[in-house]
């Protein structure tokens, strides 16, 4: 603890924001799937892990800082492909089942993906270095702040705007929102709901891949990162309001900022703070802060 100057405070706030943005990208995808398909997708975390590992491989494959930029584009597409295969081969046959079965199916999927990742990439810790453009740090009020985190803070709102434009301005986005509210009605209008669901699922999982690619330079990539992430992502989506993208943003900010202030003031119990915040929010507003689409 000790004395905490305003520079540290602001820096820590920014660190919290940058972590929130990664969480937001992942949670926006999770929330989107939850809103349209009504399925809490536990495999979302595993897809995020694939994104991170794929980024590692791609940066290795292409030497220099161009590798990261390629990975940032290719890795999420790879994740989207995996999710498309899983959805069309297995998941789409289960939509009529009860919730619990769908939930357990996604858990089974996450177990399988977890082991496949172990087979492909092994159990060692991996790390990715940030591209040259984003290496090093800038000085904010005399305290140094990593450049890559600034990049994350910029990317988060971009994703939010892109997703907002997609769901509100494009036809498929509107259809998917309609399917979330009343899937029978959408089917009656002659739209193939099964493919709408597939598209929504793949887009959500694509965002998980983007999150995985973005997080790669900031953490050590390892097995088990899926399990720690998915529980946080679920809680964020719940406190924000199910299926509400802005809710995911608010939830991510709450989660990230409480965690980073926890690190500043009481490092040992830093991870307790976000959970505490979540519990307080849920006790006051059990259905989330913003309106849920359910």
């Amino acid at each position, binding site marked *: 603890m000790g004395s905490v100057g305003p520079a540290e405070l602001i820096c820590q706030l920014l660190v919290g924001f940058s972590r929130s943005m990664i969480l937001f990208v992942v949670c926006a995808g999770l929330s989107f799937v939850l809103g349209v398909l009504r399925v809490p997708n536990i495999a979302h975390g595993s897809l995020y892990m694939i994104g991170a590992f794929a980024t590692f491989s791609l940066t290795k494959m292409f030497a220099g800082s161009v590798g990261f930029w390629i990975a940032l584009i290719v890795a999420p597409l790879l994740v989207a492909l995996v999710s498309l295969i899983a959805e069309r081969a297995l998941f789409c046959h289960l939509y009529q*089942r009860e919730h619990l079965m769908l939930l357990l199916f996604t858990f*089974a999927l996450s177990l*399988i993906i977890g082991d496949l990742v172990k087979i492909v990439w092994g159990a060692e810790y991996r790390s990715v270095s940030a591209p040259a453009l984003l290496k090093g740090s800038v000085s904010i009020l005399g305290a140094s702040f990593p450049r890559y985190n600034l990049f994350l803070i910029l990317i988060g709102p971009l994703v939010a705007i892109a997703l907002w434009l997609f769901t509100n301005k494009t036809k498929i986005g509107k259809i998917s929102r309609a399917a979330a509210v009343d899937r029978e009605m959408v089917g009656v209008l002659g739209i193939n709901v099964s493919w709408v669901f597939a598209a929504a699922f793949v887009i959500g999982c694509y965002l998980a891949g983007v999150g995985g690619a973005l997080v790669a330079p900031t953490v050590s990539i390892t097995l088990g990162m899926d399990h720690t992430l998915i529980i946080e992502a679920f809680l964020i989506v719940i406190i924000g309001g199910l299926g509400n993208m802005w809710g995911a943003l608010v939830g991510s900010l709450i989660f990230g900022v409480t965690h980073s202030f926890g690190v500043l003031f009481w490092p*040992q119990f830093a991870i307790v703070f976000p959970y505490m915040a979540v*519990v307080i929010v849920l006790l006051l507003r*059990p259905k989330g802060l913003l309106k849920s689409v359910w």
Partner: protein
Amino acid sequence: MFTRMLRSRWFGPTAGIFIVLLILPLFAPRFYVYILALIYVTSLLAMSLNMVVGHGGMFQFHHAVFYGVGAYAVALMLTKTSMPIWVDFIAGPIVAAIIGLIIGWFCVRLSRLYFGMLQISLGSLIWAIVFRWYSFTGGDDGIHGIPMPSLLSSLNNSYYFILIILVICLIMMYMILKSPFGSTLQAIRDNPQRCEAVGINVRHYQLLGIVVATFFAGVAGVLFVVLEHSVFADLLFWTLSLEIFIMCLLGGWFTFAGPILGAAITVALRTFVGKYTEYWTLILGIMLILVIFFLPEGVMGFFQGLFKPGMKEVAERGK
């Protein structure tokens, strides 16, 4: 109640199995005795979850917390206090039930998925505290080498202790589920609105169901400590909660003994498949998908359906 149990069709085979299990440690290798004991502990945990999920219809998403709390309570009592040994052992289930009461009190006011999510968040809070509080719970290292009374120090003795406690708990659970309380719980699962209408205090019953189930989860936690002489924070992690869910699914939700079968399958899979390949969760995942697609009522439910076509309708009603 007892006479009904004695007259049950299942009584003969069950008693037979019990006697076999009782004499097994006399000639079975140590390793198998240990695995069997682990299956008993896990079965009790899965059965306690099934009480609330299968019979109570509640989304108890973070059941492992109560298991872990029970285990930590007895471990801390044994290492940090000098109370009589039976007090330590009783403390596990009691603390678990108290935590169950507190968490349940918040959760029963919500429905379905929100219930489960609030429970996950409260449970994760407890996990996070246990995970980081090094000075008290040992943090992520856990507590190892917990002193046990000399009576329970040998593996065979703990095997018998676990088996006897398991049987007592199973009889208690059976009686609870067949009692008016158990029937009410199942009625609430099938139609909460109607139960409310006939004057049943739904939340009150659900809360009581949670407390009873968490009590048994705490017993399972104590038995885990008896077997392993150690506790660690992973006991409260949410992946374990989902694993217990899988056990219930594999065995069958709406059967009494299904979770035992599911626990046995899971533990055996981890032990024996885990010996040949490190990718046993891959096999578990594939098995789970096969069960979801082809045997949604679980292995036990499937066989009961073969013998008793009526059971299937009962299971259908539960959805």
